[in-house]
């Protein structure tokens, strides 16, 4: 019967203890700050705040940036990009050659490169990787090789398969033969998904076992605990409870060795929290600072690094709607949009109005396409010419999502819809959750008249932009029979000669703007990085493919 009194007392006591310990904790923490990092001759630790969980660390089974960030530090690709650009340069292959048919690729491999497990990187290892992908068994595994499916068309036994075979001509020469020419190469060899992994480790840790469980898949020990590549960092561990991926310096790296001893990728999903952690000094760099915070961070002395734009946001037009089949109506929509104002009011720093569906650094960008300057009167005039006054359109936009090219879909929709209304087009906004209906409705069923969507380029190739959108009939844009457009893009993509390819794609881009207008390009919006002042050597990549071996943290 005295329990109640005692309970109260002990609760109070617990409170007191808590308060005392908090005080102690504060002290302990400041000690740590003073003690850690400095002094030692070592490079210290670099903590980078990422925006999401990676899936696993087997490159071939991944397709998203958050997984690729750590993978890229641990693995290398045959061909890579010059830092800060989308220009190709040698990776594991010092050089590469394409024969006249465009089907045979010969890679001269770098000498003396070793995987983290000590096994040598040679032509046999490279071929083992190509063969592994091609011969992957099981629908579960195959269904997760999204880039492979996209670039290489299919697996062993499929008539669409692009890959034929890989031969180790000698220890340092690998010859990859394709069944046909594909414009994606050599750019696609830079894809992080096609990183070269250690065949020994893959065998040891059973890399190909992907098992279905319920509505999803389990991956191998290789993918989860023993990723083994040739990269500047080795795998230290992934603490899922704290969301920390630890990477250690690879002392035997073939290229520029990492300047820091250890790198931690800390996963912080909320952009606001990433910023606050940066300010608190608990992380040294953050990805994707909110557009709204860039100025404040820069003013406070943080480095805000813009990646050169390599993406596109567009307003898709569905020609299943007969009214929208009329080019004049589509042009009216283009004229109605005040894209300059959208960029000014809602564009993240460095954003620019897009006139074409690819950034100007990519081959085939034309300087002289038709531009649709904001002009409401012109829009109204075109609409009445087309007999499409009083038009009502269903405008689909996604919710529950942000994308580098689309930091805030709701705001973008609201502004665009507003512009269209001003030109006399009635807009019926239809929000759909990104994975809970938007992609289905837009890309599977084509329920929309208009929608916003975009793309971040994977490698420097026009086919990766316009080819992806307009190279074949897609429900998204309605008309399955725009054969003229499909043919032109297909032909341009199949052109082996680079100069001819450039000319062909320039023409494609001119026609896209003036003749076909299947969508209206809105903007290129470069995603940024922000770091503390003492971080040096972080080179932002247009492909969000930063490598952190060049980063150093000064005191």
């Amino acid at each position, binding site marked *: 019967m005295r329990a109640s009194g005692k309970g109260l007392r002990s609760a109070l006591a617990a409170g007191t203890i808590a308060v005392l310990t908090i005080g102690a904790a504060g002290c*302990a923490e400041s000690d740590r700050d003073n003690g850690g990092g400095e002094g030692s001759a070592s490079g210290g630790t670099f903590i980078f705040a990422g925006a999401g969980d990676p899936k696993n660390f087997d490159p071939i089974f991944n397709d998203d940036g958050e997984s690729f960030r750590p993978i890229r530090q641990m693995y290398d690709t045959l061909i890579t990009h010059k830092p800060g650009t989308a220009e190709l340069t040698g990776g594991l292959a010092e050089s590469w050659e394409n024969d006249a048919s465009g089907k045979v690729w010969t890679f001269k491999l770098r000498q003396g490169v070793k995987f983290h497990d000590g096994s040598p990187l040679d032509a046999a290892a490279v071929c083992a990787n190509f063969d592994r992908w091609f011969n992957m068994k099981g629908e579960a595994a195959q269904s997760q090789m999204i880039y492979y499916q996209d670039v290489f068309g299919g697996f062993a036994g499929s008539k669409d398969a692009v890959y034929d075979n890989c031969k180790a001509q000698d220890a340092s020469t690998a010859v990859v033969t394709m069944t046909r020419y594909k414009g994606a190469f050599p750019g696609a060899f830079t894809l992080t998904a096609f990183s070269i992994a250690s065949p020994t480790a893959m065998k040891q840790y059973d890399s190909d076992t992907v098992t279905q469980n319920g509505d*999803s898949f389990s991956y191998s020990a290789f993918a989860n605990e023993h990723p083994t590549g040739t990269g500047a960092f080795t795998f230290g561990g992934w603490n899922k409870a704290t969301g920390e991926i630890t990477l250690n310096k690879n002392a035997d790296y073939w290229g520029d060795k990492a300047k820091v001893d250890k790198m931690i990728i800390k996963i912080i*999903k909320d952009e606001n929290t990433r910023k606050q952690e940066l300010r608190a000094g608990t992380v040294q760099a953050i990805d994707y600072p909110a557009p709204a915070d860039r100025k404040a961070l820069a003013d406070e002395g943080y480095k805000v690094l813009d990646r050169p734009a390599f993406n596109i946001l567009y307003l898709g037009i569905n020609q299943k709607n007969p009214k929208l089949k009329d080019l004049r109506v589509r042009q009216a929509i283009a004229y109605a949009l005040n894209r300059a104002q959208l960029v000014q009011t809602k564009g993240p720093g460095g954003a620019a109005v897009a006139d074409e569906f690819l950034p100007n650094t990519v081959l085939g960008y034309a300087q002289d396409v038709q531009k649709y300057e904001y002009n409401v009167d012109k829009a109204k005039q075109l609409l009445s010419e087309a007999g499409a006054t009083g038009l009502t359109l269903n405008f689909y936009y996604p919710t529950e999502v942000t994308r580098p090219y689309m930091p805030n879909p709701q705001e973008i929709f609201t502004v665009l819809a507003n512009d269209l209304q001003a030109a006399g087009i009635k807009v019926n906004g239809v929000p759909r959750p990104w994975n809970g209906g938007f992609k289905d409705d837009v890309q599977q069923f084509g329920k929309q008249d208009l929608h916003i969507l975009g793309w971040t380029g994977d490698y420097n190739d026009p086919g990766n932009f316009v080819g992806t959108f307009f190279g074949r009939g897609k429900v998204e844009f309605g008309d399955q029979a725009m054969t003229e457009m499909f043919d032109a893009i297909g032909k341009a993509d199949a052109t082996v000669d680079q100069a001819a390819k450039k000319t062909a794609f320039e023409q494609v881009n001119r026609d896209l703007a003036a003749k076909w207008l299947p969508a209206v390009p809105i903007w290129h919006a470069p995603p940024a990085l922000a770091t503390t002042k003492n971080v040096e050597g972080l080179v932002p990549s247009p492909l969000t493919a930063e490598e952190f071996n060049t980063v150093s943290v000064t005191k």
Partner: protein
Amino acid sequence: MLRVISRRLVQLVVTLLALMTLVFFWLRSLPGGPVDALLGERATPQTRELLTRALGYDQPIWVQYGRFLKNVVTGNFGNSIRTGEPVTEVISRAFPATVELAVAAIIIAIGLGVPLGYLAARHRGRLLDNATIIVTLVGISIPIFFLGYLLKDWLTQGLHLFPPSGRISTGMDNTDVTGFFVLDGLLTRELDASADALWHLVLPAVTLATIPLAIIIRITRASVLDVLDEDYIRTADAKGLRNPTIRKRHVLRNALLPVVTIIGLQTGALLAGAVLTEKVYNWGGLGTLITDSIGGSRDYPVLQALILLAAAVFVVVNLLVDLSYAVIDPRVRVR
């Protein structure tokens, strides 16, 4: 007592099965679904087809349901779409985080709420009482995610009093034994880790405690006032008992009865509050898991398991509350 517990557990199982079936069929009827969630933006139609077959979505729905049921009965909730781990693993990792947070919040709420409510009742109508009432009313009316934002902005940005997010400092390299970081530090003698975890715990726990605290204060106050009005307190007074004795022996014990009930009812509210609090403080618990499983990714297997877990926790906690009620209140015990 055993009969009560077993009856409750049977009830729980039946409820959960019904809930599960409902959720299963509902999810299958939705657009998008796991296929969409598993495919990135790069997916080609071929990949989509492959995946549909790999997941067995081309089979009749009752075959799928049978498989689902078999899995669930054997404790297999499938794998998370987002991370590819078994759902049970994902949840058992997040569970301690939320429990740690919730327990801290409950300790704050009870530790402050009961004394404050009691004091307010004792000083009924005076400044302390009125101030307490106003503060609790605001506490109930403030959106707690906003409160979390404010606390975070004031105390971690301008003043670096607390860390802005997470459960422990990055790179602390603590040993994970139970998943309760504060406890782990004590167990492994990594006292600095324990202190650091506690330091991270303060703001989220305070944020999460706000509503339960306000409610406990109010209930305690009302309950103490009720008890003070009771005849047996007058009897105790008539006996000439000293005030402290009356308070401890006669007032508090009786006044705590409704508070115990409310604490049980608050468990649910705590889970809901954890969703918001954890998002604000990037706290890797169940709340974050819920947000992650819905927002964008639609991680249905995890979501499914979470719904079941929430219901189970709620039922179990209320069973515990009932049992504790029986311990405190002899009337329930015997009847």
